[in-house]
């Protein structure tokens, strides 16, 4: 619920180590610190396998840091964090439930009655432009429409933090631009803090207030940039041609390129033992 309890995310000196099947210790991220203010849109960019998803998992409470602390709203995360919603690259929709029932699931998990949950789900489907599709099943929708359903499902619980793990990664360029605009529109209305993972730098600069650049594995924070493009930003397709956008984009790319090249050299050098960097 979006109450007075604010959604400030403080990540302080977080290190995460995994035990690989062969028994070695693998450091996924090392000494990561950054802060996301309530209502701020923060994008995290970095090469594949640098630990972006791992970081999200620890903010949501699905996983625990090996060292350091993650605080949300001033409280150390322990167990599933309250007031968080997730959006993944693959939309987490249940194939045997209708669109309406899928969106209503969030409130039902939170304890709302079925009638109330469905009324709210109907309202949210209308807001994402899917009125009239309530009784369809996910496999009867296009990729973009399924994204809209996933967005409604993520926002219906009015989260104070919205976590998005490459949500538009699998979409074609046009659909991605449309969905980005939709997301900005919906975000302006309720203003949750957003932690948005992407490997598309343009997308990060166009959407975010703040861009965190991570190094290749083991992931650390390389640099943090404030994006001072005015809001509302309007269409993400057009903002790409503004001089200030290009300036920021070049500046961040100079930092990021080195990391991407290093990560690329590593994958091109032969198969690594940890192939699960999805």
């Amino acid at each position, binding site marked *: 619920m979006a109450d007075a309890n604010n959604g400030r995310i403080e990540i302080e000196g977080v290190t995460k180590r995994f035990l690989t099947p062969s028994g070695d210790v693998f450091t996924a991220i090392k000494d990561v610190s950054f802060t996301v203010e309530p209502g701020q849109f923060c994008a995290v960019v970095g090469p594949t396998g640098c630990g972006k998803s791992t970081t999200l998992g620890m903010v*949501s409470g*699905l996983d625990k840091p090996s060292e350091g602390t993650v605080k949300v709203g001033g409280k150390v995360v322990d167990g*599933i*964090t*309250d007031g*968080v*919603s*997730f959006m*993944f690259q*693959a939309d*987490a*929709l*249940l*194939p*045997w439930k209708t669109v309406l029932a899928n969106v209503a*699931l*969030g409130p039902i*998990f*939170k304890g709302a009655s079925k009638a109330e949950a469905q009324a709210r789900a109907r309202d949210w489907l209308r807001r994402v432009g899917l009125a009239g599709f309530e009784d369809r099943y*996910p*496999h009867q929708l296009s*990729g973009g429409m*399924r994204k809209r359903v996933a967005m409604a*499902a993520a926002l219906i*619980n009015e989260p104070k933090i919205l*976590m998005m793990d490459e949500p538009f990664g*699998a*979409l074609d360029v046009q659909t991605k631009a449309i969905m980005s605009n939709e997301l900005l529109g919906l975000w302006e209305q309720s203003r949750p803090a957003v932690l948005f993972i992407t490997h598309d730098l343009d997308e990060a600069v166009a959407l975010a207030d703040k861009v965190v650049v991570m190094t290749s594995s083991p992931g650390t924070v390389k640099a943090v940039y404030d994006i001072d493009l005015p809001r509302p930003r309007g269409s993400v397709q057009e903002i790409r041609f503004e001089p200030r956008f290009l300036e920021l984009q070049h500046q961040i790319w100079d930092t990021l390129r080195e990391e991407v090249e290093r990560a690329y050299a590593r994958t091109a050098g032969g198969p690594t033992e940890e192939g699960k960097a999805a």
Partner: protein
Amino acid sequence: MATLTRRASTDTATPGTGRTGVRRALSSPFATLGVLIVTVVWTVPSLGLLITSLRPQQDVAQTGWWDFFAHPHVTLANYHDVLFNGGFGVSDGLMPYLVNSIAITVPATVFPIVLASMAAYVLAWIPFKGSDTIFFVFFALQVVPLQMALVPLLQLFSGGAHIGGATIFPALGMGGTYAPVWIAHTMFAMPLAVFLLHNFIAQLPRDLIEAARVDGASHFRVFRSVVLPLATPALASFAIFQFLWVWNDLLVGLTFTGGAPESAPMPSRLAQLSGSFGDHWEILTAGAFVSVVIPLAVFFSLQRYFVRGLLAGSVKG
């Protein structure tokens, strides 16, 4: 026989692997011919069984079942005899044993599925210290032969366990009830059930489960609303094999009920019948057919669940 049925379920519970290759191989003309031959070889004796069970006693005694096509006399008297009269001079028919068989098989199928799917979810999706060890122990227990555990288990149920004068486990006094058979079948099924369902449930999409967790669903809620529906094909496959195994089981049923009419399952009675009426084919075939019909009905009513995988078409793009 037992090991054969149980092995077979390993393949059915993991859908999607190598299916196209198999499908291509099965559509060649030689394969079609082979399947036809197997079908005929399998069907002819079953047809003979059915026809014999429907012929009057004198016909069966004098001619083979194929003679039926020349002299088609049909009667249901054999079924009436075997179900209610038990044949010649025997008071009880198969009917009470049929009821026992159903009362044993349904719970002995449901219990292990419920317990094993919960265990599988916990072992696959809730990280805790020692979960790998527990899973390994489950896996290893599959090698314990049923025959070895049977008698100690029976002694435990009827006499309890004692060290010196101290009772560690009380005698349960469940003689004459279904409970010992349910418990025994459940225990013997658990290792394989946990193993199979764990492998299936561990491969469900992480996003679906984590999204529900982050939305505030408890583990039980995730299990019920997300995991169980997704695991339906695996549950149905296991249910069929467990049902058939328990339905056809003679050893466990006979050991734990002593063959008494108030709790013994049908195979123990069929074994008695074939001893006393070995030459009355019409009675035996009718009894056999009664015991075949119910598993067939179960198979056909459950098959659509594992043929049409629920995940099909869910995660694309």
